[in-house]
């Protein structure tokens, strides 16, 4: 159906709302990356199968809906029963029959599947909005994730989707749109935090045709998955943002660059584009306004550097993704040397809401210089891993402890890594810092795209720096030597420290080298490449010195500096014997096992599988 007027959209929205409402009870099954890894696709088919066999009054097979990431991945697979918002956690295929028979038929709540308050095990919470993880969030870019079926454009429209587009195309001039976006204070969510309004306005002014709009869905930052969840769970919000942008800057062609490691994101974006074309939200004469726009999906090739703007544009053109020097910015000469607006997935997903509710509303959220909300993916050594969105300006402590629940029992918090390979690690005493673009940069980390990885006392900060340097060496495109050679040498020196072979002079050398790399590199990859090293050295210098002077790894990670021994707690369960890759452990059932130090490679597999804390690290 072609939607060419606000009235038709309104009618479609009403119909869609009614249709959704008619099936009063709904079973939402999260197919986000976390729940999927827990087998939630099987839950979906099982629910459908059971409901086909057993008729439940008022609940049809269509009431079972797949939704994108709901956020609370740590408790996945998640099943939510609407309209009561009953929140079932860690659901297995075997639970499905029970849920149908008890909850759907009798309205009975199954206690054992509910979320339990970690401080008070008797306290179970059924309604997810009461759970601290959700209660402390405010969702704008993730507004529909976990709420709608990404494959159904009706669902998106029922939530008010495409109404911002309708308003823009029928009642606003491009200049007014640019003005609204500028006034909202929206800054790019992809890492740099550049003003979106200013970027668009610059592009609109360039006297060259055609102009292009590109969405950066490369999300190369390891440990970040916000963009994946948006593209998979609410693809239309990204499209709507792009179409609005295209109208504002006067572009007729768009690309979405999705990394190939996200096959489902590619599929869902593609399906969304087709559905949008069918309804004429993409195509010719959109909303009868005379404005044409269409979008193509481009799959990335699995190179981190292709997230960088100029490299991405090379890649879109079918070439090797090597960045170029930016004497001329890509808004002036971007893809195919034409003016190009490149924004991140989350940036685009936020745009429709701004135009819907107004720039005043948006800029009232967050801080003065970083307005709105930001999505973060919380991972690592934290209890409540998952996807969260909070107003800018809340503290790291709010996110990690109030929402994230802190580090798992028995461990202590050590650092939080933000900004991926371009960011840094911040220690405990920086936890009360407000999370916004500028505060994090000031202390040597950065907001980045929103990956937030919590580390505990069993994480070695030197090894973390080595890990990131290794990542960057692998991913450096090799075009400029400060990055290609500099990072490589930095990695060698860092490895030397982890092996206990370095001296303090090496640290000085590394600091000097870092400066050279920062100043001399061509693109952001090299310029910010030394950050993980510099920030860990700034905040955890004593850990570096322990490796260098005492030849010790306090976290017990660096293989050359530790030894594993079996203590008296050993029950002789043979678990470690089975798992030892070098057959260094011997022993019989129910007898104390023996570890042969000559064969041991200090991999730590034995410690990982031991249930009795019988492996010590010295």
């Amino acid at each position, binding site marked *: 159906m072609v939607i060419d007027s606000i009235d038709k959209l309104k009618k479609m929205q009403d119909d869609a709302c009614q249709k959704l409402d008619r099936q009063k009870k709904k079973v939402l099954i999260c197919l986000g990356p976390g729940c999927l*890894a827990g087998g939630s696709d099987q839950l979906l088919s099982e629910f459908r199968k059971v409901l086909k066999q057993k008729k439940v009054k008022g609940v049809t097979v269509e009431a079972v809906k797949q939704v994108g990431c709901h956020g609370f991945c740590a408790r996945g697979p998640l099943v939510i029963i609407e309209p009561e918002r009953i929140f079932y956690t860690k659901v297995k295929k075997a639970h499905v029959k029970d849920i149908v028979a008890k909850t759907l038929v009798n309205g009975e709540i199954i206690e054992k599947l509910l979320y339990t308050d970690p401080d008070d095990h008797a306290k179970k919470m059924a309604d997810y909005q009461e759970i601290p993880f959700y209660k402390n969030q405010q969702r704008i870019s993730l507004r529909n994730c976990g709420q709608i079926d990404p494959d159904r454009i009706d669902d998106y429209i029922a939530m008010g989707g495409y109404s911002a587009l309708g308003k823009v195309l029928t009642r606003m001039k491009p200049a007014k749109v640019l003005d609204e976006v500028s006034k909202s204070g929206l800054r790019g969510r992809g890492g740099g935090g550049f003003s979106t309004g200013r970027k668009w306005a610059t592009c609109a002014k360039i006297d060259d045709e055609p102009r292009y709009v590109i969405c950066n869905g490369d999300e190369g930052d390891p440990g970040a998955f916000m963009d994946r969840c948006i593209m998979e769970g609410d693809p239309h919000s990204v499209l709507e943002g792009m179409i609005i942008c295209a109208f504002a800057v006067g572009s007729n062609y768009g690309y979405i660059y999705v990394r190939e490691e996200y096959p489902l994101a590619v599929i869902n974006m593609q399906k969304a584009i087709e559905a949008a074309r069918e309804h004429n939200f993409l195509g010719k004469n959109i909303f009868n306004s005379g404005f044409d726009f269409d979008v193509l999906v481009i799959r990335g090739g699995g190179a981190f550097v292709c997230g960088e703007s100029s490299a991405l544009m090379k890649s879109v053109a079918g070439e090797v993704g090597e960045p170029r020097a930016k004497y001329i910015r890509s808004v002036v000469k971007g893809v195919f040397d034409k003016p190009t607006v490149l924004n991140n997935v989350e940036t685009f997903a936020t745009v429709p809401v701004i135009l819907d509710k107004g720039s005043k509303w948006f800029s009232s959220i967050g801080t003065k210089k970083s307005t709105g909300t930001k999505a973060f993916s919380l991972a690592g050594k934290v209890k409540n891993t998952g996807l969260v969105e909070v107003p800018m300006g809340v503290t790291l402590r709010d996110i990690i402890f109030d929402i994230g629940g802190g580090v798992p029992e028995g461990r202590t918090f050590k650092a939080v890594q933000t900004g991926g390979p371009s960011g840094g690690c911040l220690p405990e005493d920086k936890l009360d810092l407000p999370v916004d673009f500028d505060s994090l940069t000031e202390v040597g980390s950065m907001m980045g795209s929103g990956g937030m990885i919590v580390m505990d006392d069993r994480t070695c900060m030197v090894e973390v720096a080595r890990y990131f340097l290794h990542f960057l060496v692998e991913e450096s495109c090799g075009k400029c030597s400060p990055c290609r050679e500099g990072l490589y040498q930095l990695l060698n020196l860092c490895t030397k420290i982890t092996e206990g072979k370095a001296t303090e002079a090496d640290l000085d050398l590394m600091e000097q080298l870092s400066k050279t790399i920062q100043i001399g590199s061509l693109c952001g990859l090299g310029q910010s490449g030394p950050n993980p090293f510099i920030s860990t050295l700034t905040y955890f210098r004593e850990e570096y010195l322990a490796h260098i002077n005492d030849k010790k790894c306090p976290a017990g990670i660096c293989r050359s500096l530790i030894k594993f021994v079996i203590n008296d707690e050993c029950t002789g369960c043979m678990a470690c014997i089975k798992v030892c890759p070098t057959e260094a452990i011997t022993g019989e059932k129910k007898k104390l096992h023996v570890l042969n130090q000559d064969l041991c490679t200090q991999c730590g597999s034995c410690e990982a599988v031991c249930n009795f804390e019988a492996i010590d690290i010295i």
Partner: protein
Amino acid sequence: MTTAEKTKLKKIFDRNPKNPQALITVLQDIQKEFRYLPCDAMSEAAKQLGVPLSKVFSASTFYNAFSLKPRGETIIRICQGTACHINGADLMVEQLETELNLKVGETSTDLKFTIEVVNCVGACAMAPVLIVNETYHGNVRCDRAVGLAKKG
């Protein structure tokens, strides 16, 4: 190349535009169909798209998505993203390498298994993550890795 393979290849060229811009997409389609980039397919791509073979080679070695060597039936990928790394992804690598007697990046001689590492697959909340062909496994303790991989 066998006739069947040639037909597959022709289909790929038919559904994509024939210009240099389509290079990456075409290579991705070839990789998907053959699980690697056969030499003949690369020179055919060069011819069809009007790109020098050197450029085709350069693109296929630049992007991690491409492999120049045949890969196994079961592709075992271990996530090496930050979250997985600090949650002990290396231990999975160790187990798999020992059990299958292969190093990361290698394929068994019977073309059954390939072990690869990837930089984050976006399931970080379930770290460490093991992907066997298209199936994701989350929170994998190292002693379960081999079993999951062999199940296919």
